[in-house]
């Protein structure tokens, strides 16, 4: 009989483990991940210990209240938009069969591929007073200037919420989709037979079961929002993060900025802990014996068109429109004809860096979470919890924090080299692309860990028990059970990390070696001069490079899930 466990599924490890080499190896990966993430934080804390005088009296009185309120509103709004769009789109494409479903399932993640601040520029161009929309309205209604009528301002809090929402919903979509795919028909089928309406299924079964995944997705989207500088500044939304930069650059107080960053980090950690506490006493695992694929319900009549439109609107607003605008700019500016050859080199660099970083991040993140499943040692548990914090600080702050630890290691290497009579080797890590890869790994570990945890939470411990009784060690367990079953989660994470690395900007700007340019930094140099359109081609290359894995992974993940699930049913 299939059963849904009443208690948390990962709380126990049933039989004593055969202590083979794999267990400590996984544990070591977890600890490495934790240490890597701690390094920049430690140096951030050291920075924060500096003298800041009367800074906090000023901040508490004039800055924090307003910035906090604005940031909270922004995050709340983005949470609502991303949850609604991301989870309903994921639910639609996994539960129903309707026209265009296959194409939509890989079109839906695409908004990820365009840097948020670029989308902000594009929408301001399109919707602002002199843009095509308002110009057309003026022509139709005979208005003379923007002062003659009211039109919603994109450069506003509401504009920012919608913009971030439509660009960042894929985080929720990918996480939720991975979960819906492995959600067995165990509850939905009987409920359907008992006459439950689809809406009831969603509210009482599908959504509660997908909660870990949705909360992982939405926390990633919110952290991305929180760490943004470009788009919020341009849209005039002065968030806490912007205040950190003001304190650093205008007040000349790096210590104060570090303190604010630490405070923000504490708030983030508290919120995440609160959410976890909220679902602590619930179990989400599906049983070992019922992993059949849920057969999609074929929609008929108007319902199928509603489903199609519902999924298509976010694709249009989050991707097709901004990408189309960039394509238009490439054409009118003749960027293809006057193709900048060095762009090809930048694209290669970007892809190489992103691939390596993705592989390392996935390996570290998934091993760390696996280690926790094998052995609930407090050191491992702490490491896993700590390893995700790199995503919770703004990229520039992370990069600043990473500088000293990197140089420290380099100086160690130099001292060692000199002890052996060799010449100094210079900045081996801090002066090379290794710094970028390390920064990407630390920054995006949270994605790997979050997806791994959500993915593993769905694998019943019963499966482990059986395999263990048959003599499988952690390596075999991982290879034969965890990896195949967690595949949708792994693919989702791989995709997010890869695309995030492709467009990572703040840490890349500050940590890159001499003469190294990525696509993101190439675009940025135009954007800072206010002519981002000149970087359109590079932005489209990011999209193109991102699309291939998105298509391959969403399709492959589908097939893999089907194969795995069919084999088991």
């Amino acid at each position: 009989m299939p059963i849904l466990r009443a208690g948390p599924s990962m709380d126990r490890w049933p039989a004593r483990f055969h202590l083979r080499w794999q267990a400590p190896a996984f544990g070591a990966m977890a600890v490495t991940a934790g240490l890597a993430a701690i390094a920049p934080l430690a140096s951030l804390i050291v920075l924060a210990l500096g003298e800041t005088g009367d800074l906090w009296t000023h901040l508490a009185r004039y800055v924090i209240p307003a910035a906090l309120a604005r940031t909270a509103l922004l995050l709340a709004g983005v949470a609502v938009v991303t949850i609604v769009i991301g989870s309903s789109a994921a639910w639609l494409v996994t539960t129903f069969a309707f026209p265009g479903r296959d194409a939509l399932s890989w079109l839906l993640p695409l908004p990820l591929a365009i840097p948020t601040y670029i989308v902000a520029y594009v929408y301001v161009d399109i919707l602002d007073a002199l843009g095509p929309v308002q110009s057309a309205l003026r022509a139709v209604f005979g208005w003379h200037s923007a002062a003659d009528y009211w039109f919603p301002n994109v450069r506003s809090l509401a504009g920012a919420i919608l913009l971030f929402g439509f660009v960042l919903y894929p985080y929720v979509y990918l996480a939720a989709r991975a979960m819906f795919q492995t959600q067995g028909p165990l509850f939905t089928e009987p409920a359907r037979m008992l006459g439950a309406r689809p809406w009831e299924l969603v509210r009482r079964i599908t959504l509660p079961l997908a909660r870990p995944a949705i909360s992982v997705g939405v926390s990633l989207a919110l952290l991305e929002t929180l760490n943004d500088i470009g788009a919020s500044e341009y849209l005039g939304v002065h968030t806490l993060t912007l205040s950190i930069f003001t304190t650093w650059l205008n007040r000349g107080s790096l210590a104060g900025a570090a303190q604010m960053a630490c405070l923000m980090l504490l708030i983030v950690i508290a919120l995440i802990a609160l959410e976890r506490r909220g679902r602590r006493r619930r179990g989400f695992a599906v049983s070992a014996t019922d992993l059949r694929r849920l057969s999609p319900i074929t929609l008929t009549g108007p319902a199928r068109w509603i489903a199609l439109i519902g999924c298509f609107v976010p694709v249009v607003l989050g991707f097709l429109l901004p990408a189309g605008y960039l394509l238009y700019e490439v054409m009118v500016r003749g960027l293809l004809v006057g193709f900048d050859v060095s762009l090809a080199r930048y694209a290669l660099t970007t892809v190489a860096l992103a691939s390596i970083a993705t592989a390392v991040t996935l390996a570290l993140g998934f091993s760390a979470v696996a280690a926790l499943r094998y052995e609930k040692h407090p050191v491992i548990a702490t490491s896993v919890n700590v390893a995700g914090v790199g995503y919770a600080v703004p990229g520039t702050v992370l990069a600043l924090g990473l500088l000293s630890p990197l140089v420290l290691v380099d100086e160690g290497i130099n001292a060692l080299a000199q002890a052996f009579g060799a010449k100094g080797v210079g900045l081996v890590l801090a002066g090379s692309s290794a710094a970028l890869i390390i920064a990407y790994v630390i920054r995006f570990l949270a994605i790997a860990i979050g997806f791994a945890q959500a993915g593993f939470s769905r694998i019943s411990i019963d499966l482990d028990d059986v395999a263990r009784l048959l003599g499988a060690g952690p390596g075999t367990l991982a290879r034969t059970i965890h990896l195949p079953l967690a595949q949708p989660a792994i693919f989702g994470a791989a995709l997010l990390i890869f695309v995030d690395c492709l467009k990572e900007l703040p840490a890349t700007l500050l940590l890159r070696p001499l003469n190294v340019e990525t696509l993101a930094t190439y675009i940025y140099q135009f954007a800072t001069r206010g002519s981002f359109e000149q970087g359109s081609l590079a932005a489209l290359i990011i999209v193109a490079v991102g699309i291939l894995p998105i298509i391959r992974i969403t399709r492959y993940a589908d097939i893999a899930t089907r194969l795995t699930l069919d084999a088991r049913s």
Partner: protein
Amino acid sequence: MKTVRALARGALVVNAIVGAGSAFAQSGDVNVYTYRESKLIQPLFDAFSRDTGIKVNVISASSGLEQRIKAEGANSPADVLLTVDIGRIEDAVRAGITQPIKSDVLDKIVAPQYRDPEGHWYGISMRARVVYASKDRVNETALNYEDLSDPKWKGKICIRSGQYIYNNALFAAFIAHHGEAKTEEWLSGLKANLAQKPSGGDREVARDIAAGKCDIGVANTYYWALMLNNEPDRKAWAQATKVILPSFQNGGTHVNLSAVVLARYAPNKGNAMKLVEWLVGEEAQHMYADLNYEYPVRPGVAVNSIIAGYGKLNADTIPLSKIADHKKAAANLVDKVGFDN
């Protein structure tokens, strides 16, 4: 197939890591860390390499380069830091990452108010913070910065964030002229005159004036020229506006600097000095004037004709390093009056 892929990936790793080999400078190189976007200054570096045979390696970023050089310490490959805005220039000196540039050439060319008395930084180009005004709706041809708080402009002014570095420096200059109390009053008045919450960049000032959202706004000198001459789809914004060079009632027009700093542990100091001196030479200064539409710091080099069309620049005489002292106070006042809220 798997091995091939693994090998390919391995090769990429090696390539990505060793590809940075240029970080360990050759003797014929100079390493530049810069806040000026590489596209903007690349033509200058190309010309320098052509003239001298010295290769220029570049890292450009938007913030944190001082911290990077500081963290890198004695092993830092940085020779030269090109930076903008007087506040950041002084930050570099305060971070202890500079050394005095001892150069008679520079001392002769760069006027004393545009360089550090101890030689830690030299200005190489200037930009002024000025007013863009609607051609149709604004009759004034001259303004004082003080006028911006005049209630007659109520609901008619556009500006970007009060914490943007160039606004911050302008407000610091206001404090240098009038003191904090007067500046607070002025900022409140300016805030009350704003047509909308501060947002966007300097170009948006022209965009919003052209759209009729406001009549005047504050921006840097070069954007107007760039829009008019280099950006066809923004030409109309420039054409709808005119540029007024405002003055302080008891002074001149507020200018800010791009400047050069010699890194404390510069490994290629000789080449770095060549670059620094070359940057204030005739050729480089003409490029600053004509490609970037900046005011050259070298006397005798003409400004671009579009910039000249704004009228004669009567730059404020308060030394910029004095203005930098008030930056923190200016940032605090912006918060206090809720300028960006």
